[in-house]
């Protein structure tokens, strides 16, 4: 076999070998877990600092504006901000830009309130605390005191109580969501008379305190498409609503202009962005451990190294085989 044919063979490597290598590079670090440290960037710190400055008198929107396909990257972002908001008692309106996002939002909320997962928040449904609400007890501190004096004890391992209608409202999906955002600049209740569980929004204390997007302090949208732009166009540009993005790594470079122009507070780009937020939550004592995104970064490290190795191999074969002297070689596997 001549040297040239060896290089040619290398260049025409069956792509299934590459797929196998990527598969191994993804699975092995996931099982071993190196836990390499992650430094945080200004783009993510700015979102963290902003949310950290909010309290029970503020309110935020978290938009789960993605389909299940990108959940590995987008869900940890939504979960991290949700945990942060719950920790600071900031009421959260949860929405979805597309029908499948509704399921993603439900999944994230269930994850944060699941007693089987460490650092969970004990959820109290809208009906369960109806008596207290009717008695006019809506302030978070008073609510907790009254709720616990009624004989309810915070389960072991729980980080706190979250009351549906006071701490969160699962609004979910509505058709043509960009126009829904526009409508919510005037009234949230007009767009969502009921939440996803059929509870009337008008009876929710958090809605009474934050009737429109003008009274909301942040819209954090996590997305795998340009759905997040709608929050800029109809929220930020129309009424000055502060907006922050959490986008997939493939999309991340698209939105740097919005950071520089000051139209968004910050951006979490891909799993790395979510991992940075998890690190910030951990370092500030808001969570006791980091979560899935941080674990996933080991996988990314290995995969990126492998891709670089493949690029180097491809170039060595390309030059050593003398293909650079020939006309364009269109590899078709």
């Amino acid at each position, binding site marked *: 076999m001549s040297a040239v044919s060896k290089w040619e063979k290398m260049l025409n490597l069956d792509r299934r070998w590459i797929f196998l290598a990527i598969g191994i590079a993804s699975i092995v670090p996931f099982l071993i877990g190196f836990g390499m440290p992650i430094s945080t960037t200004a783009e993510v710190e700015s979102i963290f600092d902003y949310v950290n400055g909010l309290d029970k008198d503020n309110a935020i929107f978290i938009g789960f504006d993605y389909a299940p396909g990108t959940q590995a990257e987008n869900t940890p972002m939504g979960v991290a901000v949700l945990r942060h908001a719950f920790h600071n008692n900031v009421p959260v309106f949860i929405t979805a830009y597309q029908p499948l996002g509704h399921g993603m939002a439900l999944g994230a909320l269930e994850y944060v309130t699941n007693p089987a997962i460490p650092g969970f928040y004990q959820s109290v449904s809208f009906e369960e605390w109806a008596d207290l609400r009717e008695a006019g007890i809506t302030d978070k501190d008073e609510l907790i005191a009254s709720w616990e004096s009624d004989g309810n004890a915070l389960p072991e391992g729980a980080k706190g109580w979250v009351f549906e209608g006071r701490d969160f409202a699962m609004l979910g999906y509505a058709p043509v969501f960009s126009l829904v955002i526009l409508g919510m600049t005037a009234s949230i209740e007009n767009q969502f008379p009921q939440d996803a569980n059929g509870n009337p929004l008008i009876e929710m204390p958090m809605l009474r305190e934050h009737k429109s997007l003008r009274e909301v302090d942040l819209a954090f949208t996590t997305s795998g498409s340009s759905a997040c732009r709608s929050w800029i166009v109809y929220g930020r540009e129309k009424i000055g609503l502060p907006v922050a993005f959490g986008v997939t790594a493939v999309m991340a*470079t698209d939105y740097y202009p919005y950071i520089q122009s000051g139209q968004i507070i910050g951006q979490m780009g891909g799993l790395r962005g979510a991992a940075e937020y998890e690190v910030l939550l951990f370092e500030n004592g808001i969570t006791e451990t980091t979560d899935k995104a941080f674990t996933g970064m080991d996988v990314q490290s290995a995969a990126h190294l492998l891709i670089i190795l493949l690029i180097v191999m491809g170039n060595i074969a390309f030059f050593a085989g003398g293909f650079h002297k020939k006309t364009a070689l269109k590899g078709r596997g």
Partner: protein
Amino acid sequence: MKRTVPLMIVMVGGILMMVQYFIPHQYSQAVFTNYTQWAPIVGAFALILGVGSLTRVHSHKIRRKTKNWQYSWAVLIPLYGMPFLAIIWPQSLAGGMDSPSIFHFFFMHIQVPIQSTMFSLLAFYIASAAFRAFRAKSALATILLLAAVIVMIGQVPIGEIFGRWLPETGLWILRYPNLAAKRAIMLGVGFGILATNLKIIFGVERNWLGGAGK
């Protein structure tokens, strides 16, 4: 007539919305509010047409027993089965969309993993495409290649082993050269959008109405 009327509607609608942007008056806002109320309704009717199309195409395949016609059942059964489970099936028999229900089970255990798998293929395809296409053929291609390597390593924790300069350089590339190139393309795109919109509003571009025009 078949084309003149739609063109007139487009022209009047286009100019109206353009002018409306500059008029905050209540009558102008009423026009806009009306539009925002109509748009979802039109969209909902179009969805019926879409589902009709999908059904027609696949029922044709099944009827004609064309190649791979069996897959068409895999489209049609969930297409009608999932709404049936969500709406019609009684709640007492695990109907509805909320957990626990059959719909929720299918959504969480079939749709979510399948879609995640589709997206995760990206990692495999990126590796394959990078191996085949990323060549240091010229000085410019070499710069591109180096920038890509720096950003890729800088984005992952392992990059910090080489020192803070690597992630910092990666971020610098993203924040400045990347941004400059992106803005240049976005400006061109912006004018392209403006010109295309004007062509449509004033009837210069009619292909979208059907056919290649004259």
